[in-house]
């Protein structure tokens, strides 16, 4: 989690103004602004919501309502690295749930949780479009496919 400072809020403000140029309505800049807030603060912090509301004119309550509708937004502080593991049908039949068990055993990581050292958070996903190379996950913004316990182990060790 990155500290909220006036300087970082200013960066976010500049980004929101840029995004608003791309659409005929200010509200349309909300979804990309959330991604910008996550990039700057690690999650959509209350201060970021306030800033997005100030710039776009959309009430903060509505902004919270929009952000909470979408599964991928981080509305609370998360670990340094986010594991988004798919367990939908194709991944399930290729063993995704055994990987969920393994993460629990080895890292004490449960779905929706974060490791005590703040290194990893685990999010269970509803299909990430890698069904032909199942099981699969997105780690931060990188996609990994054909996972096995060993491969998962090796991969996670490269994310400190």
């Amino acid at each position: 989690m990155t500290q909220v400072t006036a300087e970082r809020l200013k960066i976010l403000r500049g980004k929101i103004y840029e995004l608003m140029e791309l659409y005929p309505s200010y509200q349309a800049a909300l979804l990309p602004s959330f991604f910008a807030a996550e990039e700057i603060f690690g999650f959509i912090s209350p201060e970021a919501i306030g800033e997005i509301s100030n710039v776009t004119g959309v009430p903060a309550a509505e902004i919270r309502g929009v952000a909470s509708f979408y599964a991928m937004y981080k509305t609370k502080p998360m670990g340094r690295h986010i594991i988004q593991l798919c367990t939908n049908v194709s991944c399930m039949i290729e063993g995704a749930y055994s990987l969920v068990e393994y993460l629990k055993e080895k890292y004490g990581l449960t779905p929706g949780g974060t490791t005590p050292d703040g290194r990893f958070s685990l999010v269970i996903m509803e299909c990430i479009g890698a069904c032909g190379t199942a099981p699969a996950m997105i780690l931060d913004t990188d996609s990994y496919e054909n996972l096995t316990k060993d491969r998962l182990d090796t991969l996670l060790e490269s994310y400190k």
Partner: protein
Amino acid sequence: MDERIILRNTEDPHNASIAGYMAYGGYKALEQAVGEMTPRDIIDEIKSSGLRGRGGAGFPTGMKWQFASLDPKFPKYLVCNADEGEPGTFKDRPILEHNPHLLIEGMIISAYALQSTRGYIYLRGEYPHAKRILERAIEEALASGYLGNDILSKHFRFNLTVHSGAGAYICGEETALLDSLEGRRGLPRLKPPFPVNSGLWGKPTIVNNVETFANIPYIVSQGAKAYASIGVKDCPGPKLFSVSGRVNKPGVYELPMGISLREIIYTHCGGIKGGGALKGVIPGGISTPIIAPENIDCPMDFVHLPKYGSMLGSGAVMVFDDTVCIVRVYERAMKFFEHESCGKCTPCREGTAWMRAILGRIERGDASERDLETLQDVAENVTGKTFCPLGDGAAGVLLAAMKTYREEFEYHIKNKRCKVQ
């Protein structure tokens, strides 16, 4: 079909760059369209080609374009639906990651035909790699004069933006997608009015799937007749099939529309993994009814599959062998539908949760025979009573599975364990 149209050159890593794409004749169709054809000519050509939308509904593309072009309101918006959130579907991914300029060229030609000046690619948030590739491709197209304010010096203006979704399956439904693009919760809208007349910000809007746009350059450069000679009469053209599950060679295949499931599984995908017996196939993504092994000779297209009690959907083939428990598959599928129900209408919001809860009991071995009756009853009562196809699809696929694999559901209840494991 010997020649690949949509996946052409995708094995070449340079194909994602504009130089690589142009080396294979890329953007020639756009030059031909803008230089030699009127917008009306293009719409007529698309209509004659018989192209049907590749997102799942199979609506005739040319007709959709004509409706939007006849609407006198301006501006007109062009939206590419790159959400593909249906479990089993990953057919658009090779286009987005390895052939982005084919999509962009298709969209620019469409924009010219519709006199649209603004376009958005609504890309699912789960494809961060594709976002980087698309954004770079858009910059390259701008620098080369194929996008921007004076395309090919013809006073034709079109600008394109990639807009990321954030993990909501419902946003693949075109009206929910539009709500999401406008910066709101992605809830489906009441139709009519249809987006072609009242879409983004109330203006005429064309929403087409990635694969649909990817067909456009070929139709313009080779003509409707050449295109219509591929596939079957009522559903011409090539089709991308994304195959997953228990086959030896899963992946994305470009094959003529109307090919049989048997040919896809046994000729192209190398048959069943481990040599097991085929148990069932979902032909078009998780929201299309399952097909029993005795029906795998069915032609894969929008016309024939309904005769076998299923649908082509997005062409996402999911193959199950005899090691797969059907009850477990549908419990997991229902968990997905429950999670992804937008909550706007009660039958879907409550029905999917109820069906998931009963399926959970059956799968755990805690269910009674009465539960099976209740499950059937709930599913029948959700069918036809939901605002958009999500709830309807969830109930429909479950009913089809309960009909074909009834004995397996009953086994779970009676023996309090799975028949397979």
